[in-house]
């Protein structure tokens, strides 16, 4: 059995950790938090791109490094640890994966090199209204070669050059009437409205489309199936970000509890706090192990992926949400101030557990996929 990352992958992790420790400190994260006009850290983005992280899992023939999904998992964990304020997940876990998996040869040649080099940024949007996305909620239409409609929230929409959306290609309003389209956002008829998010370091906007040109991605009528598959792939990567963020939340809670004294002793010596931190550790270890299993399924194109991805997602959301909220609790009063960093993790944890579907939605996915697996 070899249920671990390789030495090379661990080396990549160490390098990424060191790099982000230097270049993505909390001050850098806060420049994006504190300034409404900044949507991502441009300097960090170009450095990350220069090192090739954006092209990690993109084949060499399309301008990437041609490494695998495991390497991307390793980088995701580090991005999660450092709260990196970049559109990495939108552009790489979603846009690039859609193109890589479903694009025509021409589309791959056109988009992937631009994404791999970091020169252009892509994203994906499904949702148009509150609540669980479902086919009947998609009102955006494609007809006479034009898109009309509305998407919100669109993660990293302000920054993005390209967007993949689901739209109705006929008027039946069911699952099979939805197709995916690639939209160039630099054209007339695209209007963006910035939205404040619970984590401003991960911004979003709403986008209105009026007679906008678009090209179809993948097969007509297959939007929902393709989206489910890419969300499964992305869920594994996000779960590594979440595990990374959860681990740092625990580390910082621990550090503070050993520096802070009350009643003449370190507060970390009180069992009420120790047990909380032990519970954080338990949830994080379970989440890490579930994420590893997701990584294995992702990297081997296993038909276990739907179950493994949902398991990784549910477990990682639970771990990060718990670690982030209890980190505030362990810090006491200063924990809910703007100056202390606890809220950065609290914000990020909730945002990450919502962005590609809520935890309750993923729990439902998990059980329905288990049922399907049993029938097979």
């Amino acid at each position, binding site marked *: *059995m070899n249920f671990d990352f390789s030495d090379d992958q661990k080396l990549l992790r160490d390098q990424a950790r060191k790099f982000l420790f230097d270049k993505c400190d909390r001050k850098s994260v806060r420049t994006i938090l504190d300034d409404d006009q900044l949507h991502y850290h441009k300097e960090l983005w170009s450095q990350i791109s220069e090192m090739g992280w954006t092209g990690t899992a993109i084949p060499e023939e399309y301008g990437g490094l041609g490494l695998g999904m495991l390497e991307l998992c390793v980088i995701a964990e580090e991005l999660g640890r450092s709260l990196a304020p970049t559109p990495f997940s939108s552009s790489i876990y979603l846009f690039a994966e859609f193109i890589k998996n479903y694009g025509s040869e021409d589309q791959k040649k056109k988009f992937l090199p631009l994404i791999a080099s970091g020169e252009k940024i892509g994203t994906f949007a499904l949702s148009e209204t509150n609540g669980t996305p479902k086919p009947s909620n998609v009102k955006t239409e494609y007809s006479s070669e034009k898109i009309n409609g509305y998407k919100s929230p669109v993660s990293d929409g302000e920054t993005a050059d390209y967007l993949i959306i689901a739209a109705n290609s006929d008027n039946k309003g069911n699952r099979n009437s939805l197709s995916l389209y690639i939209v160039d956002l630099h054209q007339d008829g695209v209007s963006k409205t910035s939205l404040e998010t619970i984590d401003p370091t991960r911004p979003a906007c709403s986008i209105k489309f009026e007679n906008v040109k678009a090209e179809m991605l993948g097969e007509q009528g297959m939007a929902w199936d393709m989206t489910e598959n890419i969300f499964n792939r992305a869920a594994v990567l996000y779960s590594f970000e979440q595990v990374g963020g959860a681990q740092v939340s625990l580390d910082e809670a621990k550090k503070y509890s050993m520096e802070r004294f009350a009643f003449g002793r*370190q507060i970390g010596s009180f069992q009420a706090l120790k047990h909380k931190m032990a519970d954080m550790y338990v949830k994080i270890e379970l989440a890490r192990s579930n994420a590893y299993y997701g990584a294995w399924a992702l990297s081997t194109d296993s038909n276990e992926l739907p179950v493994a991805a949902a398991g990784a997602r549910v477990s990682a959301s639970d771990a990060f949400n718990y670690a982030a909220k209890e980190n505030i609790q362990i810090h006491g009063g200063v924990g809910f101030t703007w100056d202390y960093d606890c809220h950065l993790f609290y914000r990020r944890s909730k945002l990450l557990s919502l962005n590609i579907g809520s935890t309750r939605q993923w729990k*439902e996915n998990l059980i329905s996929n288990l049922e399907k697996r049993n029938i097979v």
Partner: protein
Amino acid sequence: MDFNDSQQEAAFRKEARDFLEANAEKRSIISDKPNDKSPQIAVAGAPETVKGGKEAAQEALERAKVWQKKKAEAGFAAILWPKEFGGYGGSPIQQVIYSQEEHDYLVPSGYFEIGIGMLGPTMMVWGKDEDKKRYLPKMITGEEIWCQLFSEPSAGSDLAGIKMKAEKDGDEWVLNGQKVWTSGAHFADYGMIVARSDPSALKHRGLTYFYLDMKTPGIEVRPIKQISGTSNFNEVFFNDVRIPDSQRLGGEGEGWKVALTTLMNERLAVGDPPGLDFDQIFEATKELEVEDGLAIKNSEVRQKMADWYVQSRGLQYTKFRSITALSKGQTPGPELSISKLVTASKMQDVSAYALELMDSAGMVHHDQNPVLKNLFQNGYFFSAAMRIAGGTDEVLRNIIAERVLGLPQDERADKKVPFNELPSGKN
């Protein structure tokens, strides 16, 4: 990443599988055996609970001995022990592989684990050569069963608070006091015991460690009837029990150190304990009906199931990470410390929820209960014990906090004061 065995591992797995296939019966997810109260204490090694009184218990013990002899002859009874004492001379990864394979079979368990896993290794470190030669081989074959006499009414989580008196009289020791929670004392032939030889010394320094014959005059074993109605544990009373000094392991006052050897050898919890887990309740939800149809179609049920699934598989994959370390010849990290903490509470929650799903039928805990063979009723009681035996949830959280996370120890009132001056309260 892969889940494949190395060539040697695969060969060993085949050897284990062949042996089990030829000699044991496969386990099903929800057992059809009326008396198979499957959930077992993974760490404390409580024997199969057997209803039907002494005769049934005696028969079960005889069956276990027959099985153990076969297992020993095939070499699988003590995989980690050196060959000279009848072991397999194998590696931790081989132990794991065997446990994984055995997990799929209905075999007796809970009689020999404490001896082979903890007490034998203690004797290997601290015992004299003639002791090792005399006792260790019979421990493996199951001819002689051993028990561990550590806990006392006033020394549970705080194990070093032992009060059992050991007074020296010439070249003999006289033991007086009481032990409790002793698994298998009612069928054990021998035991290992820690006692207080010097009450005026500091708590951890006044202890001495012995082994003894459970038939020594003055020892009285009384089973403890548990919440489940069965008895796996005992109280053991010592009334002027005389044992020779030659049965001392380690020096006088060194008992705590020897006890730590025992405790460090808690058997590799890497093999899954047969238990009540996600798979069992998942099966049950496909049979049980709630107000809107089958339980598995109800969205509240599905949400809860997902939580248990990720806990269950999270633990399994955590074990895979540890096995990976073992397979590479490394020592596993601290990940395994979470296993029992998660398992016990999960079992309690799963059982209680399954009873809810049965509605008023969940009240029935009758021998001929047709609903899922009492599995969840048994689990409901058993899990309450599991959260305490082998380290309470609270002790385990302290261990994680202090040894894994490196958080400071709680302030202690017992570190610098002689044992007999410590406040002791009501036992």
